[in-house]
């Protein structure tokens, strides 16, 4: 059987699983629905891995025209294509494996699931998986909009899942409104591209644009579609929804949102640029780099500063995700295969690390009904294993060799350094600060470092910490094995991403195929694949290791300093405006999203409209 035929199954299997759970979930006992959901998710993951392996041996592109609507010569067709290249297949496999991990982790979650609906949580997770995998694999612009909306709809519902609590709803609401707007902006952009080229396939649109010079239509389409994807990626100033949603979503959902969904936005922008806009009739490289790198730097700095300021652990991790998205945008924004390869490894390792950190935070939440750094001060000394995993995650986030985060960061920052030396500094500082914030919180919670300030402002200390109910129904006495195994495995995977040379080599050649305009079109439309000759594998070098050690040392130093002394009033006042922006007001967030649209337009216009 042709491997390409497997591609639709990667998406369809979780759909079927969701259908089974939606019907059977009301009758099956809890354990059965858990097993069923893991089985379906794992099957999809296995299919993605088979397609990846098969593709890597033979032709690197796995192409399936859904419904058999293969286009004629010249690429004139009517169907939708699923196109798996090593990059998108790798991301699909990673997504599915993370879903499996999350499902296993949440076995003990929601001891009392909604009555008669014990299957609804795993069913929604499987639908989320289908949406994300489809978004990775599709080679059709409108189809990717539909998958984008599927991811969105499921994610809003999952974020608001715990309706008994008060805050999840607000986060879900902001998430839903801003993301839907992003979707509609994207659709307007798709309509413009359709009007200009009369095509919907990425490869076809790209080819049609090649034959003409860029104009205002191309610019507007680029801005609108990118804005939609950057909303999903939570790039500044589209990012406001993310901390509000991540701080409140159930922990397993956070693992997926932070670990992979947000990164899919970055993937989407990159794929869109290379396949559609990278040709002579699109957006010139300088303009695209200017846009993506500027937005990336802003995102990285805002995320880093804000994450340092948080004491609510889930919010802290959420802002750290924002910071890393900024780094990813810089990595892909310099438009070199090396930058893309580095970012790919960075994304995978970061996904593992971040999910592991959320998993550890979830354990705290379930045991102490709080994730507040000050409330938990020193109380988690009794959880040495969780603490060790958490601190290891924090170090990995700083970029400590030999974690994959370090390798990815090293390769990406070296490539970014060719565009501007200061970009390397951004990588080092931002990863040090966000990693340092995680470590600082860890020192205080798990080791009780520094003064215990919280008792002073609590009246009589009698206050029950937190309004955050544990997600397991009752507070955990013993930590279930699965809840510790999952973060351990995820960290091990992040370590392997840095150590297994085949992965680094694979990322190198995948990026070579991915970051190229013509290769994609000829593979999809003409069935010709250029071999990935001349692709440099992403590898360790001395400078990268030293910079990784530097950022780790910086991060650790910051953490110790931050844990020992309370924050200075001066920095506090300086940063107050930035904090006030995160107001929780949907009107504000929408206004910022429109401002983002304008920012993108102003950044991308010079060069696009004036080039000959």
């Amino acid at each position, binding site marked *: 059987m042709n491997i390409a035929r497997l591609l639709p199954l990667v998406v369809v299997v979780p759909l079927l699983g969701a259908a089974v759970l939606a019907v059977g979930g009301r009758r099956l006992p809890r354990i059965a629905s858990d097993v069923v959901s893991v089985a379906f998710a794992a099957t999809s993951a296995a299919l993605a891995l088979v397609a990846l392996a098969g593709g890597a041996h033979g032709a690197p592109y796995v192409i399936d025209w859904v419904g058999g609507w293969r286009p004629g010569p010249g690429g004139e067709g009517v169907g939708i294509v699923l196109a798996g290249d090593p990059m998108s297949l790798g991301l699909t496999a990673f997504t599915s494996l993370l879903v499996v991990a999350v499902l296993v982790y949440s076995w003990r979650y929601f001891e009392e699931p909604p009555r008669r609906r014990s299957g609804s949580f795993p069913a929604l997770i499987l639908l989320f998986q289908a949406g994300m995998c489809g978004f990775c694999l599709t080679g059709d612009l*409108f189809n990717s909009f*539909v998958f984008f*909306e599927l991811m*969105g*709809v499921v994610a*809003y*519902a999952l974020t*608001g899942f715990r*309706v008994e*609590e*008060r*805050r999840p*709803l*607000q986060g*879900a*609401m902001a998430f*839903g*409104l801003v993301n*839907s*707007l992003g*979707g*509609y902006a994207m*659709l*307007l952009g798709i*309509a*413009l591209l*359709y*009007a200009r080229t009369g095509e*919907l396939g990425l490869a076809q649109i790209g080819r049609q644009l090649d034959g003409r010079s860029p104009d205002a239509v191309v610019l507007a389409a680029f801005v609108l579609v990118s804005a939609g994807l950057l909303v999903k990626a939570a790039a500044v100033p589209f990012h406001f929804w993310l901390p509000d949603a991540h701080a409140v979503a159930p922990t397993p959902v956070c693992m997926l949102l932070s670990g992979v969904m947000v990164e899919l936005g970055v993937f989407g922008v990159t794929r869109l640029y290379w396949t559609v806009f990278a040709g002579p009739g699109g957006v010139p490289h300088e303009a695209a780099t200017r846009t993506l790198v500027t937005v990336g730097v802003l995102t990285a700095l805002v995320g880093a500063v804000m994450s340092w300021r948080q004491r609510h652990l889930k919010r802290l991790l959420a802002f750290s995700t924002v910071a890393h998205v900024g780094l990813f945008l810089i990595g892909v924004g310099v438009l070199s295969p090396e930058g893309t390869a580095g970012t790919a490894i960075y994304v995978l390792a970061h996904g593992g690390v971040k999910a592991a950190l959320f998993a550890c935070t979830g354990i705290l939440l379930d045991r102490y009904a709080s994730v507040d750094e000050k409330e938990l001060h020193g109380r988690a000394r009794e959880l040495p294993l969780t603490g060790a995993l958490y601190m290891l995650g924090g170090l990995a986030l700083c970029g400590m060799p030999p974690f994959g985060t370090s390798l990815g960061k090293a390769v990406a920052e070296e490539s970014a350094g060719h565009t501007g030396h200061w970009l390397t500094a951004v990588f080092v500082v931002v990863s040090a600060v966000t990693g340092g914030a995680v470590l600082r919180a860890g020192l205080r919670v798990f080791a009780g470092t520094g003064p215990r300030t919280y008792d002073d402002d609590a009246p009589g200390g009698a206050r029950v910490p937190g309004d955050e109910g544990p997600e397991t129904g009752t507070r955990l006495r013993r930590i279930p094995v699965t809840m510790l195994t999952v973060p351990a495995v995820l960290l091990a995977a992040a370590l392997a991403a840095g150590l297994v040379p085949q992965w680094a080599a694979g990322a190198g050649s995948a990026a070579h195929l991915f970051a190229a305009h013509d290769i994609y079109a000829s593979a999809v439309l003409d069935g010709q694949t250029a071999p990935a000759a001349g692709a440099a594998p992403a590898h360790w070098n001395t400078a990268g290791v030293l910079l990784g050690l530097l950022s780790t040392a910086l991060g650790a130093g910051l953490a110790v300093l931050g844990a020992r002394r309370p924050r200075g009033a001066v920095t506090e006042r300086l940063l107050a405006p930035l904090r006030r922006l995160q*107001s*929780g*007001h*949907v*009107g*504000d967030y*929408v*206004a910022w999203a*429109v401002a983002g649209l304008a920012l993108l337009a102003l950044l991308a216009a010079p060069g696009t409209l004036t080039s000959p």
Partner: protein
Amino acid sequence: MTLLPYLVAGWIFLVGLYGLVTSRNLIHAVGCLAVTQSSTYVLLLAIGYRDGGTAPVFADIPTDARVVDPVVQALTLTDVVVGATVTALLLALVIQLHKRHGTVDPDELSELKG
């Protein structure tokens, strides 16, 4: 006339956004989101229109008749469904928000948040 449909689509998009930014009630905001979305319908169908074309349904017209673009119509259909589902989900959230916070005014909600 050649620009009017596009301009109307742009106007609806922006006026919907204005409503969202200035909304004092989340139910109203969800309504404004629906308005914003209708801009995509108008733009898509305007792009697919062909002067003098008829609907692409060959029930009682010859198969070589001049018809408008069926693809944008299919896309718009999908879009309509997406819009309805998003509206439903957001309204469900509004109901629960109101239960927990006693208000659906974004200003008050944002103050609650601190």
